[in-house]
């Protein structure tokens, strides 16, 4: 890149720094004056003040007698919760959409294409308003709930699911699950070594799935089924008990997941299509089966393209979760916004928002970079 002469470079940089510092000082002075004039406090003292805010939909128990600090924490937890669930679900659906897009079945590919083209060209906020305002409010009232599965009730107050009550011994079922996961990893490695030595392929994938499902199941039955369910029951006008997913949460999740899945689907599609068709011809001409072509030839190369692009979509999802404020789900922005409305301490709250979002996105990017460096092919 073209360098200026060294003196000029130094001078320019000094000038810019001086300008920034003066601007910063000016802003600081103004802010001090304004805060005084409007009687706004500074600092985070408000965190220990009693909130008096009604917040539903929290992961931990909360009452309006709790502090602002605790309320903000719960909002942050909600943001993390939505982000985590959202990323996982959107990935699953996105992969389906991406694979459907390249399907040899014209109808399936076309439907996937229509899905992507619609969702990518309308604002997420619109999808949220529509899901919340139209879809979920048009559900029947509690007395006429839809019952998709026994014990599940779907109405305009929320989705009620049975709450699992874990009894003594359930810990062993979880342990069995963990053991099964580790076991399938070990089996898969061992199967690879076996194939290297003798050439015989052991279906370690199926064995792994069987173990992960079967082992906990067997333990569960052997210990006398240590699991009961608390089913929601209609008491008066409302349901009580069970786990309830409120419409705000459902609308946010549905909107976020469907929207982000469209983008992830496009990434998956372009990743798969980035693999030159000639390689597939070559593999076919050796008689290599379709599954192996997908796993050993297409996927490793496709992931190189998919992973960096999807990292962007994940950070977008985390940022888009802030739209919860528009439909009343108490995420970090929602709660923070309410607090600002009450005590005007915008600088502190906005600063906190930025810090938390930056931290989450750094974390997600770091994990994705780690994944990328492990699946990335050696670039010659």
């Amino acid at each position, binding site marked *: 890149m073209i360098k200026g002469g060294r003196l000029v470079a130094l001078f320019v940089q000094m000038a810019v720094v001086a300008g920034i510092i003066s601007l910063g000082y000016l802003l600081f002075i103004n802010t001090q*004056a304004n805060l005084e004039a409007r009687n706004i406090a500074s600092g985070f003292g408000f965190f220990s003040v009693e909130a008096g805010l009604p917040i539903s939909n929290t992961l931990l128990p909360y009452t309006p007698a709790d502090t602002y600090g605790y309320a903000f924490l719960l909002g942050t937890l909600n943001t993390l919760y939505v982000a985590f669930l959202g990323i996982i679900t959107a990935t699953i659906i996105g992969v389906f959409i991406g694979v459907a897009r390249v399907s040899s079945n*014209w*109808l399936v590919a076309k439907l996937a294409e229509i899905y992507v083209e619609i969702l990518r060209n309308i604002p997420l906020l619109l999808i949220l308003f529509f899901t919340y305002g139209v879809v979920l409010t048009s559900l029947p009232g509690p007395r006429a709930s839809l019952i998709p599965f026994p014990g599940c009730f779907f109405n305009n107050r929320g989705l009620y699911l049975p709450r699992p009550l874990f009894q003594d011994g359930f810990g062993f079922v979880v342990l069995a699950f963990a053991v099964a996961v580790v076991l399938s990893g070990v089996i898969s490695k061992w199967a690879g070594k076996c194939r290297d030595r003798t050439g015989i392929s052991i279906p370690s994938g199926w064995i792994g799935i069987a173990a992960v499902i079967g082992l906990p199941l067997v333990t569960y039955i052997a210990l006398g089924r240590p699991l009961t369910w608390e089913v929601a029951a209609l008491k008066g006008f409302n349901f009580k008990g069970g786990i309830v997913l409120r419409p705000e949460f459902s609308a946010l999740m549905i909107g976020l997941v469907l929207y982000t899945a469209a983008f992830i689907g496009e990434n998956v599609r372009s990743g798969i299509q980035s693999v030159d068709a000639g390689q597939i011809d070559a593999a076919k001409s050796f008689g290599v089966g379709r599954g192996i072509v997908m796993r050993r030839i297409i996927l490793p190369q496709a992931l190189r393209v998919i992973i960096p692009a999807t990292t962007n979509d994940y950070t977008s999802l985390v940022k888009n979760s802030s*739209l919860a404020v528009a439909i009343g789900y108490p995420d970090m922005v929602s709660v923070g916004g309410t607090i600002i409305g009450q005590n005007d301490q*915008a600088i502190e709250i906005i600063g906190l928002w930025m810090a938390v979002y930056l931290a989450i*996105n750094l974390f997600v990017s770091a994990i994705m970079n780690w994944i990328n460096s492990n699946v990335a092919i050696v670039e010659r």
Partner: protein
Amino acid sequence: MSSLGSSAGTDALIFKPMPDLPAPRTTVGVIGWLRANLFNGWFNSLLTILALVFLWKTVPPFFSWAVFDAVWSGGSGACPPGQEGACWAFVFNKFRVLMVGLYPVDQLWRPILCGMMFVLLAAVSIFHLMDVKKVVVLWCVLPFPGFLLINGGFGLAVIDQSLWGGLMLSLGLATIGILISLPLGILLALGRYSNFTLIKALCVGVIEPIRGVPLITILFMASVMMPLFLPVGMEINNLLRVQIGIILFSSAYMAEVVRGGLQAIPVGQFDAAKSIGLNYWKTTALVVLPQALRHVIPSLIGRCIALFKDTSLVIIVGLLDFLGMVKASAQDPEWLGHDAEAYVFCALIYWIICLSMSRYGRSLERSRQQD
């Protein structure tokens, strides 16, 4: 005549090529296409059947709601509750408000004129009626008469900005946002790409935090924090604050896109420019930027589409843009219960505009590849 000799000097036989035969009926036409694309193999056949069932369950009900049972005209009594079809009369009734918000009715000719200029310029761009450079200049010039028309001054009555709204507001925020954030983004990208460590650090320090936080926080910052940064007593209206926030947000993303374009330029270009005596700014303007920008046209258009969609967030800081007016109209006590029609109409308009932009971007890319 042909002969069957085999010595070098004789005439060659005249070869009569076989005529083309028609393909077997099961492989061409509708049947052939169906077999190849929908029913090749049991798994695909199963998928096709499931897809057809899905379509059967969703498409006819949608069309009867949207078209056949719909009510297309009438006043607020035209759509009684319990009616089956869509009430498009509601949309037609609210059309003016959805388009220009609370703009005074007697001054409507002004946004209409502005809209016509906008549509005209869009058509010129899309159909490549003029040279690209002239089109860009026209776009840069458009906001001035546009703003004059909508805002007022010079003899035209001034209309307060709290009355601006609807699609006009969305397009205005997006257009000005794009026109200002693109040059700003280019400056930031050049700064980040430069060798001046302080300037580079500064640019990174601006770009990365902005890209790491949601637009809502930037809008809150602009809307709530900016009054605190100004001298005591000085005020700027909410619309201007929000526009500044949008510009700031978009600049960071434009900067990243342009940076990708800068990195794709071969080093030899800089050497070549130096060797013919161009200084930094001339090199940048004449050699570097044109190439960098052409490289990333699809991403830039993608950013423009994203910006237009992002303007829908201004409802959260109190401005009634297109989506905002749609939502507000649906709360009108005379027209309750028609949220679905409102949102479907809103989605349709957004979809048309965004799809047009993306098709335009693709056509730009194609014509660039043909050069």
